[in-house]
């Protein structure tokens, strides 16, 4: 028997604020999914921080093919980020400590958004702040910008903290910041959850209750690599966030826990390298997926995943990807 499907898990609204974004797959089967009021032509997006502001990878494929583009995390004021080394490879994964380097919300709107507006692909803007008012301000300015289709709050970044407050690991602080941002925006609001918590289902529930339209997970898991010769962490920032195939089993488990806990849609990510990996997330309950580290290994990973999903539908004789979302059968 499958997991019981909470009654109103389906999209809150069916009227997209933007014009419909093209048809689903060519394979015949429908790949389009809805994340709150956002209609995606397929469930595959890019993960924040792994796709810049979209320009770099537009040399490799047509961005129109993506379900959505999620851009590098922005703050209201620009950040220069951490010193180097910022990345180190680990078994089947990598640690990064970019330190949220970004050009700031305003420069993004002025310099990068016009480029992204050329495409018929929704743009989801990832953002963060050190304080609640910074979150509010960023959300406000992004909501007024033409061409931002949804915003994703990064409250889970392990590299930057406001004093000792980690927004994404304390339910009370998370409730405050999500509630505050919810009030300032009419855009679909996605809350990106930290995996560095005891009970991710609880955190998702808090996000839902605070007004989030969707949750995305997982952000990176905090890790460290030590340079044995120098007796120092390899990363200048000491610790970094683990991503890539190494974390996938953890991410899939967390998506499943969150699926059992909330009714809002889930965007799943963490170590997705190919269509089969992406399908694991959908089956576990994700409505859409984001592809991160895989872009580095294979710049056309997202496209191959979309094509793989089309093939899967055909092979399994399914007409709609939504049939497999949350279809995990448990027990025996």
């Amino acid at each position, binding site marked *: 028997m499958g997991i019981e499907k909470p009654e109103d898990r389906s999209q809150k609204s069916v009227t997209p604020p933007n014009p419909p974004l093209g048809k689903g797959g060519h394979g015949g089967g429908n790949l389009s999914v809805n994340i709150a009021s956002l209609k995606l032509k397929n469930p595959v997006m890019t993960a924040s921080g792994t796709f810049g502001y979209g*320009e770099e990878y537009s040399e*490799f494929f047509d961005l129109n093919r993506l379900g959505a583009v999620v851009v590098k995390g922005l703050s209201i004021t620009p950040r220069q980020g951490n010193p180097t080394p910022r990345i180190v*490879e680990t078994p089947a994964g990598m640690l990064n400590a970019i330190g949220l380097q970004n050009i700031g919300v305003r420069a993004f709107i002025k310099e990068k958004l016009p480029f992204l507006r050329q495409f018929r692909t929704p743009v989801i803007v990832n953002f963060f702040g050190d304080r609640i008012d910074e979150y509010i301000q960023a959300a406000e300015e992004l909501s007024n910008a033409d061409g931002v289709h949804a915003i994703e709050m990064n409250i889970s970044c392990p590299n930057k903290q406001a004093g000792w407050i980690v927004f994404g690991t304390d339910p009370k602080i998370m409730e405050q910041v999500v509630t505050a941002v919810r009030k300032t925006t009419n855009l679909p609001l996605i809350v990106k959850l930290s995996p560095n918590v005891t009970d991710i289902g609880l955190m998702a529930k808090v996000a839902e209750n605070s007004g989030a339209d969707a949750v995305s997970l997982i952000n990176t898991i905090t890790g460290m690599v030590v340079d044995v010769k120098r007796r120092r962490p390899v990363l200048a920032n000491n610790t970094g966030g683990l991503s890539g195939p190494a974390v996938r089993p953890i991410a899939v488990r967390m998506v499943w826990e969150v699926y059992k806990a909330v009714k809002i849609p889930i965007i799943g990510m963490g170590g997705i390298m190919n269509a089969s990996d992406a399908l694991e997330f959908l089956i576990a309950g994700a409505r859409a997926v984001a592809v991160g580290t895989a872009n580095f290994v294979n710049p056309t990973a997202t496209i191959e995943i979309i094509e793989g999903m089309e093939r899967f539908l055909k092979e399994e004789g399914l007409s709609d990807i939504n049939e497999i979302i949350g279809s995990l059968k448990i027990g025996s």
Partner: protein
Amino acid sequence: MPKNFKANITENILLNEHFRLLNLSPLSDIIVPEPGQFYMLRTGDTYDPLLKRPFSIFRHEDNTLKFLYRIRGKGTLSLSNLKSGDIIDVIGPLGNSYSAPEGDFIAIAGGIGIASLLPLLRRFKKRAYLFYGARNKDELIMLNEARSLSKEIFITTDDGSEGEKGLITDSLSDFLNPSRITHYALPIYACGPTPMLKELSKVVAEYPSSLLPLNKGRMGGVKCYVSLEEHMACGVGACLGCVVKTVSGYKRVCKEGPVFDIEEIVWE
């Protein structure tokens, strides 16, 4: 012509204990690389190693891409295990390239840095004063070709097993002696380990600008371009993993580089 393509390994030749020459035959049309540009090569089929590794284009001829590499760690070891007939994923050409020197120039190669500079020497034959340094004789890879392409060659090794014993930057300092006034107006192109480049920045900065024929207000007046190395994940400018500190903030080695004007770099 997308920048990512598959390529057939036609040869993966063991040159000596440390170095190999990899010849790739791309399976689709490619963009012609410029000297100083690089490629990201996948070194195996599995997720360990996971990331591609950056390698400078060493030679492009007859539709073959050639890379000269040194076996260092997991990735290069894995690459060295690939054999003719294996197919690998490639991204490139990436990054900027060395600007063309107008006349003679100085080239400084530390170890495997020679891989990046030889295409420049090949394009501007017999116009380079080449300073080539390595740990020892065995590590002076491609020495014959380097010699034949240079106007003059200056060799240094750490152990004196070939050429001068000592630092490559010391022998450059001698060469740039104020009494040989024409030399230090020459542009410098350098590729090698970071400590060498840092040392080079000092040598360059030391030169009294008053001595220069044409002082363009530059620090020391010598035009010097360095090709930098940083850990890379994407190689295309998307991850911000490979930045270097410059006078105008962090810049991406894979995108704004790998070649930088030495004056721009803030050495740490």
